[in-house]
């Protein structure tokens, strides 16, 4: 970390006060420190944190940054898990928590217009009263914001059937790094021209700041059922997933937790799961009542054939909520197992899951680390949470080495570095595993069109061009 002075120059401070008001600027070191990290290992301290109340204020702030060559980082709830919202090169953190209104829910057109600071779950609850839903529901939805969901192209457990965030966004208002306000897309399908909305989604705040979005909604499914099966081996649970897909079913969610994760969950939020099994598989089916009974029975039968120790079916809302509880608390519970946790969410084609899991278990043994595995088996999204002690440098080294090997294994299996957490700061150094210099150059072209000055969330997503990276090594 380079040394930097925390004394904000007075001219800048006056300008910030003028734009958002004195109450909406933080510069005290104790205050800005709170915005210098997230749950990743990345750190970086901003000069100031500002809380704009409108698109116009965001535009003025970004323009100010452009004029002064000051980096800026938009921030929602900071739950991305990859260092995406950490201001690596200082500058301004533009916190979007005040832009937290749902501006419109248009039921006939099945769209909503919202500001980025709206919390995902609050929005879902509101939509529920219209009989509608916004499909993306990442596990962080209790706190994560819709703006963050868009910046990360958030996933969640339901992507096999319903796709990821980019499939559910029609339009965006964004402040470009020049400070200019632009509207992209609309409530209409396939507007002629390039899909700039698609390009902006998942760009982690490196192409601009989204200040308003038009989201595509869907009616809630008529009904849902959960099948929960407990297996003696991780392989058997994976095989069950394969057979369910091969049988022509498309469950809304297919989630697997391993022994470490089950133990963690039971220690913190006891829900009666046995501790001596290797895997729990949770299958959520949704749709029309008529097909659910048959499908649930078919799934249960597949699990029994694979010698599941027990199979439960949850038909009522209360039963379903109970069966989901364990899965939803997995992340928090795992975090209690050790002082720190190195999170990754490499994703592989579902077919490769058994092979990749075997290799991860081998990595676990070889490095003597503990890895709690919980994954969205339906879409091949693996969360290998590596437990370590931050105060033990050797422990951290081991965790880092294991992470690098997991990435290698997943990329070799035809997968990708990250399914939903984003590249952020932590995975920049692994991008070359997945992409050739020419591939990265093609991505850099997009960045340069939007942000030629390189001020929007610098240091994220793309490694420095080849020459520069060599020089650093």
């Amino acid at each position, binding site marked *: 970390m380079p040394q930097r002075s925390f004394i904000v120059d007075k001219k800048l401070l006056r300008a910030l006060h003028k734009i958002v008001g004195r109450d909406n600027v933080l510069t005290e070191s104790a205050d800005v420190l709170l915005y210098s990290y997230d749950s990743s290992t990345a750190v970086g301290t901003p000069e100031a944190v500002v809380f704009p109340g409108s698109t116009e204020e965001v535009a003025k702030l970004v323009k100010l940054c452009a004029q002064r060559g000051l980096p800026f980082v938009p921030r929602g709830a900071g739950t991305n898990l990859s260092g995406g919202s950490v201001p690596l090169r200082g500058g301004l953190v533009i916190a979007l928590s005040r832009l937290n209104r749902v501006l419109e829910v248009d039921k006939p057109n099945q769209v909503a217009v919202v500001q980025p600071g709206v919390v995902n779950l609050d929005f879902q609850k509101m939509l529920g009263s219209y009989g509608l839903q916004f499909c993306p529901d990442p596990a962080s939805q209790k706190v994560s914001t819709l703006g963050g969901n868009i910046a990360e192209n958030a996933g969640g457990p339901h992507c096999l059937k319903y796709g990821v965030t980019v499939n559910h966004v029609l339009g965006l208002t964004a402040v470009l790094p020049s400070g200019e306000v632009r509207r992209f897309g609309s409530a209409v399908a*396939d507007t002629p021209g390039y*899909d*700039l909305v698609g390009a902006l989604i998942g760009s982690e705040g490196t192409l601009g700041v989204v200040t308003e979005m038009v989201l595509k909604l869907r009616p809630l499914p008529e009904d849902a059922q959960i099948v929960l099966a407990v297996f003696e081996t991780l392989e058997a649970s994976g095989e069950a997933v394969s057979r369910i897909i091969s049988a022509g079913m498309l469950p809304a969610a297919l989630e697997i937790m391993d022994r470490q994760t089950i133990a963690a969950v039971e220690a913190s939020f006891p829900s009666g799961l046995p501790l001596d099994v290797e895997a729990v598989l949770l299958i959520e089916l949704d*749709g029309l009542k008529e097909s659910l009974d048959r499908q649930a029975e078919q799934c249960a039968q597949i699990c029994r054939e694979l010698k599941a120790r027990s199979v439960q079916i949850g038909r009522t809302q209360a039963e379903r909520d109970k069966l989901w509880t364990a899965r939803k608390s997995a992340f928090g519970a795992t975090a209690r197992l050790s002082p720190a946790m190195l999170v990754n969410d490499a994703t592989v084609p579902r077919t490769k899951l058994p092979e990749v899991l075997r290799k991860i278990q081998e990595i676990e043994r070889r490095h003597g680390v503990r890895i709690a595995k919980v994954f969205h088996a339906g879409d091949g999204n693996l969360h290998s949470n590596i437990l370590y002690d931050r105060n033990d440098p050797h422990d951290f080294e081991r965790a880092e080495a294991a992470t690098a090997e997991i990435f290698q294994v997943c990329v070799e299996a*035809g997968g990708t570095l990250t399914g939903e957490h984003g590249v952020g700061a932590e995975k920049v150094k692994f991008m070359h595993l997945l*992409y*050739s210099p020419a591939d990265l150059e093609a991505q850099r072209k997009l960045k340069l069109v939007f942000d030629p000055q390189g001020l929007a969330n610098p240091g994220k997503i793309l490694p420095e061009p080849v020459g520069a990276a060599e020089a650093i090594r």
Partner: protein
Amino acid sequence: MTGLADRLRDLEEAVGPSNLLTATEAVSQYRLDGQQPLAIATPGTPEEVGAVLRRAADSGLSVLLRGAGRHLHIGAPPGPIGLIVSLARLSRILDFDHENLTITAQAGATLASLQQAAAQRTQMLPLDQPGGDDATIGGIAATNLSGPLRSRYGPPRDLIIGLRVALSDGAVVKMGGKTVKNVAGYELTKLFVGSWGTLGALCEVTVRLTPLPEMKAMLAAALPAERAREAARELLSSRLEVACLTICDTLALGRMRLHLPITADAGTQVLLAGLMGDRAAVERQAADLKRMLPTAALLTGEPSDAAWRAIRECAYPRDAADVVARAGVPLAESAQLLQLAARLQGWWALAQVGDGIVHIGASSGASPDAIVAGLRELRRAAEAVGGYAVIESAPVDLKRSLGVWSASANTDLMRRLKDSYDPRGTLGCGRYLPGL
């Protein structure tokens, strides 16, 4: 710049003499809106595509990419065409991973060949753009055109999760992959799908598959316009999983040559609700729909398949003079455009009301003046509610005078992207938005 003969020799070197067509007679068959290309190149690998594009760029030849040519009628009249690069030889299926529900194929593979492969594992590609299954997967990716299945499964842009693209500097680059979730880097796949061959040549395409439904059915009802609109609205907000929801007028019905066991008097509209899924779900929904629309007829088996096909192909032009436009509007506004068609008289209209996509066309025999006035009015009406109208098929002078594409916002950014990926303006021959 070197002479034409040198430039062609250079291209021949890249693909081999048997894969570069230069004989005037042969080349003339590829004429488009009066423009005749100098040559047709048929490279055999993505790297060869890259090499051809780079050589074309180096020698200042403009390039039009071609799959099966099923959608070449859509687009502005081209400027001079130097070279047509046909991707037809790139026709292999590279990876069919049925357990992962994905298929990866080279651009020139036809949709039919991919459907056939998928069907062997009782899966399908939920793609059904007008123009039939002879269309290539590369063409579908480049145009992002969709059909009735879209309401249920989304447009090609949602279903295509990976690409390998040859850029005009010769580089062949990977975008996305074969996982539904993938946030490692920018979503370039979204940018390149639907870029109409103006940013790069899509050489390999990965598509998400879905289980082949156990049963398909179609419910048809003739209703007064107002009632059709209400029923559609009710269905859209219901929890039924109607897979396609179409409203068309009786002229469209005639165009489709669709004979339904219902009486559709002039002035009524026909609501077509497609159902697919397991038998229990389809039967239950059909029963619900029958209760809601007592006069409706339920089609199953071949008559249902025929209806699905007819809806899909309605918008495909019957010949070069056929005038067809596609408008995109907010969902609830599609009914308005149907009304507009009725008011104009002599225009057929078919609306995918679940997507806000409306196709409108002039009946044969309409006067040129009436056609121009009608298209103008359609575009005005669509743009007034925040939508657009694309003139997909029309005689070339009409395309020239009205403009094929509606004006779009942010074209400055699009042009900068174009300049960045295709700095010498090699690709597209000016058929997409101005400057792209």
